[in-house]
């Protein structure tokens, strides 16, 4: 063994070739970064917009009706993106509506995620009958056509604000994360380092929080961004059906008003297209973040393969 100690120190300074820098900076995934920038920009649009534009114009009867955008004949520089049939300024509506939609998505998905972590880790780690019960309920909730139920609920519950909307959407936002976290916990439980922690007499809670959660972070984040997209889509769906709160515009509400006022046949492109573009941008952003996070979480999807 003496030989071991003697000549090892010289070479130990040399890093082995396996696992190059990608591992060290996993969050610098190009897709994730691109997606984050897109979302950040949309957020900034909503956050900084009020500094440059009067958001009171987002409310009914604040502006002239049916003005086209400023660059079209008949448009007015006072309303660069035009106005719609309820006397709302489109630019102001987007400034108010984009963060409102994002908020619903984030709140609903976060609640769903929190419930998912609680139920999923319980089911996965504890197993036995709690797992059985949680799995059965989750699986049956997942098969329910959520939009139908949301429509039914929304028809009987008045939604004074977007928070109520988010809470209702959260009712269907938890089974996905629950399933994901359960399966993650189940695989992580078999991981060598979890067994090592068990052998090191580490208590259950500490194993879950210290050993498992960090390794699930990218999955959790991916699920969260996916969940936000889903909740925004759900919100848009409900709003577009006219089941959402009124007054404060969200992207879905803009679409709802556009539909109700036949913006399509009237050729009022500036009314229905901007919220749809905003949604596409938001979804693209979250989609990029989600697949980026997937790659971060799952090294096999990364562009680099280990050298054999």
């Amino acid at each position, binding site marked *: 063994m003496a030989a071991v*100690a003697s000549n090892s120190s010289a070479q130990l300074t040399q*890093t082995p070739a*396996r*696992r190059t820098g990608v591992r060290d900076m996993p969050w610098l995934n190009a897709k994730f970064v691109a997606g984050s920038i897109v979302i950040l920009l949309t957020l900034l649009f909503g956050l900084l917009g009020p500094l440059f534009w009067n958001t009171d114009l987002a409310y009914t009867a604040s502006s002239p009706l049916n003005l086209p955008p400023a660059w079209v004949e008949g448009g007015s520089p006072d309303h660069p993106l035009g106005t719609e049939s309820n006397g709302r300024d489109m630019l102001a509506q987007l400034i108010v509506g984009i963060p409102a939609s994002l908020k619903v998505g984030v709140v609903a998905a976060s609640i769903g995620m929190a419930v998912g972590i609680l139920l999923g880790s319980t089911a996965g780690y504890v197993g036995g009958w709690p797992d059985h019960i949680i799995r059965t309920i989750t699986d049956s909730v997942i098969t329910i056509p959520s939009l139908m139920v949301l429509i039914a609920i929304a028809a009987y519950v008045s939604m004074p604000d977007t928070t109520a909307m988010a809470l209702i959407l959260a009712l269907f936002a938890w089974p996905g994360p629950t399933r994901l976290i359960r399966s993650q916990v189940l695989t992580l439980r078999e991981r*060598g380092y979890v067994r090592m*922690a068990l052998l090191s*007499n*580490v208590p259950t809670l500490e194993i879950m929080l210290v050993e498992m959660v*960090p*390794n699930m972070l990218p999955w959790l984040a991916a699920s969260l961004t996916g969940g936000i997209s889903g909740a925004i889509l759900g919100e848009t769906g409900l709003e577009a059906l006219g089941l959402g709160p009124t007054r404060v515009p969200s992207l879905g509400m803009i679409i709802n008003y556009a539909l109700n006022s036949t913006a399509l046949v009237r050729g009022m492109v500036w009314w229905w297209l901007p919220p749809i573009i905003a949604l596409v941008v938001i979804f693209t952003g979250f989609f990029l973040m989600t697949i980026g996070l997937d790659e971060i979480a799952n090294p096999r999807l990364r562009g680099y393969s280990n050298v054999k």
Partner: protein
Amino acid sequence: MTIEQPIISIQEATKIYGGGFLSTSNPIVALDRFSLDIFESQAKIITIAGESGSGKTTLANLVLGFIPASSGKIVYKGVDVSTMTRAQRRTYRKEVQAIFQDPYEVYNPFFRVSHIFSMIVRHFNLAKNRNDARALIEDALNVVGLRGSEILEKYPHQLSGGQRQRVMVARAYMLRPRLIVADEPVSAVDASLRAMILDIMLKLRDQHHISFLYITHDLSTAYQISDVMYVLFQGTTVERGSTGMIIENPRHPYVQQLIDSIPVPDPKVKWHTHISLPAEEVMRMKSSTGCRFYQRCTQHMDLCTRSFPPYTRIKDGHEVACYLYQPIAEPQQAG
């Protein structure tokens, strides 16, 4: 010879998977009435050998308390492992440790290598302060030929495979266990590093009196380092005894086939016999009453399906579960 209580006594340990309430699949007997005593006074490397599905990993998981036994029990210093109190379990954990096949998998990639040590220092109260802890870790690392300054602050992926496995051995050693369950510790490391790990195991046995449950499919390394051997086939122990006796003179047809199949590292001694396995469907008809090797055995007899063959003593410390040897061992005598 002194009579002593075994530190660990595995008594008819059986593990059955599936076939429970509301289950449609047939139960699988992963491990069938396995018994083994490990004594403190004489540290040994005990090989549990077998191919995949033989139940050797199930045995490791049972001993480590990861899964409960379906029947039988594992007794640690007279206490059934499944009914231990929290404090007893802590002692058990301290005295029965493990190293695993994949030395990368056992590291949480989020933490530095030192995490593996700080966990045990904290949860087993090994040291009063940081300096004590550091000294303990350094001591353990020295046993496996490593230095703390070289590895502790690194991330697991920055170590070589051999270093990672040696760190795991050091970690186990730090707890001064009486038994280390070594589940295929060298099958994922390169040939040149293999010897190093095995050498450390021998050293721990000889200098620190730590016993090993060496779980492997590789009979050659077992031959080189182990004292006692249990060969498992589909959950049953088909041959057991001194490693040398079994490898040099295997009795059970399965063990014979196994040893015969090890490629001889000499191009001049080529395989001269052809072996063939029975049809898949036949192999799947696992008999649960008689000898599990029946379908693959070239010398099987009607008798073999009736009940599991009793252990026949070939010599002192060499027993085989096969009817072929029943008459020879007829004059049973007490040891």
